[in-house]
């Protein structure tokens, strides 16, 4: 890991009217590092993720990102064109609901190929070959390349969404409850796949989850949110094995009993 952060979140707050979405959140994320954001439902995880990924403008605070050319940019000072370009090249976003992240009415191959075409790839044969290669890497058989995601199971759709995001070789990927809504056995397989890809590709990731087991399996570091605030943060093993805050202790003990 490099000594320069890839992403810096500085005192980010988001208010919905008088309601707190998230408040005064700061952290750095380094290249290749996986950060889990945990907390119960309504604690502000999705709000924070959206503020960081330029999907929702924060009320206060700033987010800076080290671009591929090594310049550090304030995301909300960039033009919309630059932000959207960043999102579809150097970033990925995996939605909890695959329908939000896929084009359900076009083939799996086109779903994966879209980003390539968006950055100017104009060779059908190469696009298709790359798409098939990526389908293979997320364990989707080549013979499904012309099928629409409508015909896929929940787990396959989620894997397709991952392939669609990774095809441009992003350095940072955001995931919001990537295994939510899937059967336990399907979840386990997807988590293994994500863990393998993230480490093989050296991706940095921010993973929002209410499931501490997901955080344990995927992340190096984690932050715990409650009522929009970060109440505890640290290396994942430390936080889970030796939680300092009573709320975190409660969360940890509740899953250990299951």
């Amino acid at each position, binding site marked *: 890991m490099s000594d320069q952060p890839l992403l810096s979140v500085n005192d980010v707050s988001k208010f919905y009217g008088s309601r707190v979405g998230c408040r005064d959140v700061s952290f750095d994320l380094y290249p290749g590092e996986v950060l889990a954001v945990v907390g119960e439902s309504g604690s502000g995880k999705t709000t924070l993720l959206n503020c960081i990924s330029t999907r929702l403008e924060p009320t206060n605070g700033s987010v800076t990102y080290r671009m591929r050319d090594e310049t550090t940019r304030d995301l909300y000072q960039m033009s919309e064109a630059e932000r*959207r370009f960043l999102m579809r090249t150097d970033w990925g976003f995996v939605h909890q609901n695959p329908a939000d992240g896929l084009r359900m009415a076009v083939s799996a*191959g086109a779903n994966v190929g879209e*980003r390539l075409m968006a*950055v100017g790839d104009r060779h*059908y044969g190469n696009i298709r070959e790359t798409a098939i290669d990526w389908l293979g890497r997320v364990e989707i058989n080549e013979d499904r*390349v012309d099928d629409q995601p409508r015909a896929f199971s929940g787990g396959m759709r989620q894997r397709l969404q991952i392939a669609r995001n990774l095809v441009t070789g992003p350095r940072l990927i955001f995931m919001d409850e990537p295994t939510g809504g899937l059967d336990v056995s399907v979840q386990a397989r997807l988590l293994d796949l994500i863990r393998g890809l993230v480490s093989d590709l050296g991706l940095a990731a921010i993973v929002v989850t209410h499931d501490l087991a997901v955080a344990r399996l995927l992340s190096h570091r984690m932050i715990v949110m409650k009522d929009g605030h970060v109440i505890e943060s640290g290396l994942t093993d430390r936080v889970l094995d030796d939680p300092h805050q009573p709320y975190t202790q409660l969360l940890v003990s509740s899953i250990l009993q299951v």
Partner: protein
Amino acid sequence: MNIQADYNFAYLDEQTKRMIRRAILKAIAIPGYQVPFSSREMPMPYGWGTGGVQVTASIIGPDDVLKVIDQGADDTTNAVSIRAFFAKVARVQTTTHTGEATIIQTRHRIPEEQLREGQTLVYQVPIPEPLRFLEPRETETRKMHALEEYGLMHVKLYEDIATHGHIATTYAYPVKVEGRYVMDPSPTPKFDNPKMHMSEALQLFGAGREKRIYAIPPFTDVVSLDFDDHPFEVQKFDKPCAICGAEAVYLDEVILDDRGKRMFVCSDTDNCESRQAAGHRGELSGMEAAQ
């Protein structure tokens, strides 16, 4: 069409014509960009070319000579009524000869005869937005145009090849205008796309229901989208026109009898008639003579 005696020249009031002309000027200044305008009620239903009619009404003057075609023909109901409409409300001269016209309003075709400087081709457009097929949200398609994000257009062509083995889109085939805006020439056949490129004539597009006007000024670069390994190609016809023997023109299939006998004839009726007048004959002409 029931038109009152005290209508203004070319039916629309001067205020409205000025508003539409402003939209047209803006469209010419930004080739391929869809300019919103407040489309008026016309004495004909949507789908009959109300967008094209409003454009024509706004640019036509007493000295203009008007030609109207539907498919390639001057004698279809739609073409005849629009021509009659302008003959009545603007008292302009009309023609079926491409070469004589100063304004040509069209629904599907670009005439075979090469258009000249000083002529204006007015297209009646049903669906102006080329990205609509894959992105139904207007807010999003506008943003895509503004930011020149056209990857989605190739997604559509990719799907064509994945499904049919080649680009199967034959009508409304998307083009990039002057290296910037992606535009839908709808609903012309892709056969006519090359005619839009570097045309000497001004090309104006009016979509009445969708309230959009766009334009290709004379001598503008117009490129049909494609892939390096699946380049853009126009339709090719196996035979020449059965009536006039023309090759490399767009042909319509005509069913001759209830036993499935068919022939291919020019879609551009004016071009076909001019060729016949000049003595050109196709295979059917011989048969007719024999009968």
